[in-house]
């Protein structure tokens, strides 16, 4: 089945600035796709279109079988429950303890009353589940710490934990390792790979680190000024093109 399909997908922001221009791409379920491109190339626009935060200006975008230009707000919520998004920054609500920042990933299984209940009482199984995920990511001891007291890398791990708990079909990771230490970067990428190989989640990850993309992804998309300029094997991408796109060769 196709996870994401874009046909002539175009997004024009107010003021006439192109975010994406005539993008055509098909991503099968279970793929791990790296997205490369300089800042402003259209990576974040693509993610925001897939997750429904933006509306396509032209063209067609289908995500897990839903056409994004026709989707209602309720259907969009349903769809988002199958997605997990990891941002470069602004991944945690600073004043909330880590456990709530993780549990919001399972908001689909919580009624309003249960959501309110969380803030007064956590069930044993909820604590166990969050604790196990945080242990895997090496921040189990931070479970009850306010997120604002964590380092950038630790906050990023919280975002990954939230993605894991939501049991996503599709993960959108928007430069998840752009501003973290190398230890966290490896942990994040390994976790994404495991979500892909063990749970069959489709992963779309935008990266600045070419080496990292070559190592972890089975397919690469390269964007430039809103256009898709390369789609294929990691091996086929020419180093010279990437340098022209101002991408750094950082070890990962």
């Amino acid at each position: 089945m196709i996870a994401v399909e874009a046909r002539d997908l175009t997004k024009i922001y107010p003021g006439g600035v192109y975010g994406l221009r005539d993008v055509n791409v098909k991503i099968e379920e279970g793929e791990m796709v790296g997205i490369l491109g300089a800042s402003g190339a259209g990576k974040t626009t693509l993610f925001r279109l897939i997750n429904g935060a933006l509306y396509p200006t032209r063209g067609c975008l289908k995500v897990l079988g839903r056409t994004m230009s026709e989707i209602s707000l309720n259907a969009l919520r349903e769809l988002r429950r199958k997605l997990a998004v990891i941002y470069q920054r602004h991944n945690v609500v600073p004043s909330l303890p880590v456990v709530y920042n993780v549990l919001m990933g399972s908001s689909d299984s919580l009624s309003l009353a249960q959501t309110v209940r969380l803030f007064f009482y956590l069930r044993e199984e909820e604590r166990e589940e969050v604790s196990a995920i945080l242990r895997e990511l090496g921040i189990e001891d931070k479970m009850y710490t306010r997120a604002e007291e964590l380092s950038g890398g630790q906050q990023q791990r919280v975002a990954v934990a939230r993605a894991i708990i939501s049991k996503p079909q599709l993960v959108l990771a928007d430069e998840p390792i752009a501003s973290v230490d190398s230890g966290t970067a490896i942990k994040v990428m390994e976790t994404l790979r495991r979500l892909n190989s063990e749970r069959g989640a489709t992963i779309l990850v935008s990266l600045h680190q070419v080496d990292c993309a070559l190592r972890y992804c089975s397919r690469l998309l390269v964007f430039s000024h809103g256009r898709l300029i390369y789609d294929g094997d990691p091996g086929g991408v020419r180093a010279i093109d990437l340098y022209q796109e101002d991408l750094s060769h950082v070890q990962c």
Partner: protein
Amino acid sequence: MSSVKELELNSPLKPKFNPLNLAVILFLLVAVGVSARETQFSFTTFFQDSNTRAIARFVSGLWPPATNVQFLKTVFILMVETIEISLVGTTLAVLVGFPLSLLAVRQRGEEFSRERLGTARWALRWSLYYLVRAFLNLFRGIPELVWALAFVTAVGLGPLPGVLALAVHSTGILGKLYAEMFESVDQRLVEMVRSTGATETQVLLFARLPLSLSVFLSYTLFRWECNMRAATVLGFVGAGGIGTQLIISIKLFRYNEVMTLILAILILIALVDILGQFLRTRVLDAPGRCRK
């Protein structure tokens, strides 16, 4: 190539003489002058013979404050009543203002566009938004004392019209303040929580409320403080509280009782301030408070 001097000359920051500015300043000066004249403002009024005598009589009458037990007992009972009026009034305002504020939040994001919501739902959403905003403006626009007069007419004398007056006026203020507070939280975090598939109520619980809890508390406590002050004068129109006695003492020229009442009001305000600080510290400074 332009030199530094040219750049300086053309800089938008360079002050330029604008006759319109001068006209605005002149207009304001004339407006102040005319208003002062119309309101019979005069520095010398205080020093007119009859006025200096009246001031001296008032000031000398203030001291010593009245301390007879019967009067102090009355003041104490009225102080408690004032606190009760402000407390119930503020609580009602929070209970009504909070849900109204949620309807008065302008939701940003393309998810809430007409295309996504459908015309009917979109129109309903915005009609509700403007309707709630209009009601909040109405509640807020009419001063507490006028509301108190209206409620005295409706439900009779006593503390109840005072409670209702504070509740209605504060609902208007808190509803607007809460709505603006919820609107101003970091939109990126709102989008992050929405991306989990959360409903708008869950977005409120996971992002908007925790992100604005300190402001929420500050606004609410400040409103309580304002209501306490307002409750001291509601008695002027028969709506209960310490003002009931204040207006009687003033009218009977018992200035020593007025002094006792002023001191009582100061104590009330200080109490609210201390209690407010205590609550803020309890809620906000507790590190990583969370039930394990």
